[in-house]
């Protein structure tokens, strides 16, 4: 659904406000302490309020800003974002279970879907290179406690 730029800017400002309000709300449940002994909730409570205030200022500022109100065409869309996110999750899930090389191969496969047209052959080359170079650097060089193959 096309959304106007100003609306999207205001949604962003609203999320800033929401983060601030959320922090203050949780912090309110923590002990506030006294001036002598400010509690764990004291500082974050006011920081949250400050963020709310600044979010409001940004929102007000957005109203003054000249904006391009035409529907922005989305050139890349969410495809790379989703593919990269999935790739990182896959790596995290497999790293300690299957080992460095299988995990990174799975990651590269997911990354291959980030673009509509992927030239798989060069990507395979990078993948092979990283399998060898990465094993040498991380496992042998920096002794990160993972195995190249197999659970660590």
């Amino acid at each position, binding site marked *: 659904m096309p959304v106007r730029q100003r609306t999207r800017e205001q949604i962003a400002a609203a999320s800033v406000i929401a983060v601030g309000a959320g922090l203050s709300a949780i912090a309110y449940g923590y002990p506030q302490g006294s001036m002598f002994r400010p509690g764990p909730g004291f500082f974050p409570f006011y920081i949250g309020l400050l963020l709310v205030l600044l979010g409001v200022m940004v929102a007000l500022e957005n109203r003054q800003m000249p904006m391009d109100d035409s529907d922005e065409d989305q050139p890349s869309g969410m495809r790379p974002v989703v593919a990269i996110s999935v790739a990182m999750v896959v790596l995290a899930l497999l790293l*300690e*279970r299957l080992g460095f090389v299988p995990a990174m191969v799975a990651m590269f496969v997911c990354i291959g879907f980030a673009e509509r047209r992927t030239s798989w052959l060069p990507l395979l080359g990078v993948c092979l290179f990283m399998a060898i170079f990465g094993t040498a650097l991380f496992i042998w060089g920096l002794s990160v*406690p993972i195995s190249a193959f197999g*659970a*660590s």
Partner: protein
Amino acid sequence: MKTIFSKGLVSAGLALAIGAASMFASPANAVAADSYPDKPITIVVPFPPGGSTDLLARKIGEALSSSLGQPVVVENRGGAGGTVGANYVAKSDPDGYTLLMGVTGSNAISAALRDDLPYSPVTDFDPVSIVISSPLVLVVREDSDFKSVQDVIAYAKANPEYFTHGTPGVGTSMHMTGELFGLESGTKLLHVPYKGSAAALQDLLGGQINAMFGDILVTSEYVKSGDLRPLAVTGTKEHFLLKGVPTIAEAGIDGFAAFSWQGVFAPAGTPTAVLDKLYTAVSAALETDALKEVFAQRGFLVEGMNPADSKAFIASEVDKWTKVVEAAGLKK
């Protein structure tokens, strides 16, 4: 080795982990102790490399590796005052291949202090041995008016919450020792927590705080240089790095004793034969020159308790600090 499953992950993952753990755990238990160890052993240090726990673990690891005939790998899993690493070992297979170098904070005080600790130092571990202990020392600046423990008590009695002592953080043995001091002397000191002992030491040297219950080795350097004055050690007898300094008990608080300690722990359920084998190897390691040198240099006192004594000791420590935490109103 499996990943750490903390409380925060989805319960499905947790169930999976428990299932997997029990699947792997049963054959491991069945392994006869006389074939142990037939693969490398990991000692988890719940702190980043470079600290005294790391050093001790590596030196013990070297000795164990030559006596047991298998490589011993030290793995640093730091975080949350040692509780992340301790939790990792508590949830590992009880087969004697994953051990913890536990300390006062991770394996006693944290249980006294926190309700939200995802493991129990008493029921989730089978101690192999409490290896060393180390008293602390009450130090003030050289130009301070406090010349003795009695001076401190008198001032703190007259001015509650005005005698400041710095610690490396809440729940450290330095903090707990300060609380114990307050309880047993009937005074109220002002606890000033820092992030790490260096920052506390900086403020002590700069005159921002009155005193510290400090690490013997580090503070003895400043005693030598004439920057700090030791008032008393917290152990039960004179310490070899601080000759002539009385204990707090001698200086006026009868029966006062507090010290930090370090030990080797296995996950609960480790076969007794494996524990015994490890204990024999650890106590032999304590007799080696390499370890003796570390003890002398770091100011450690050798304990080398056996598994049964260690287990009783942990229970008594948790009990002792729970009482202090409750009396001082520190429970989380």
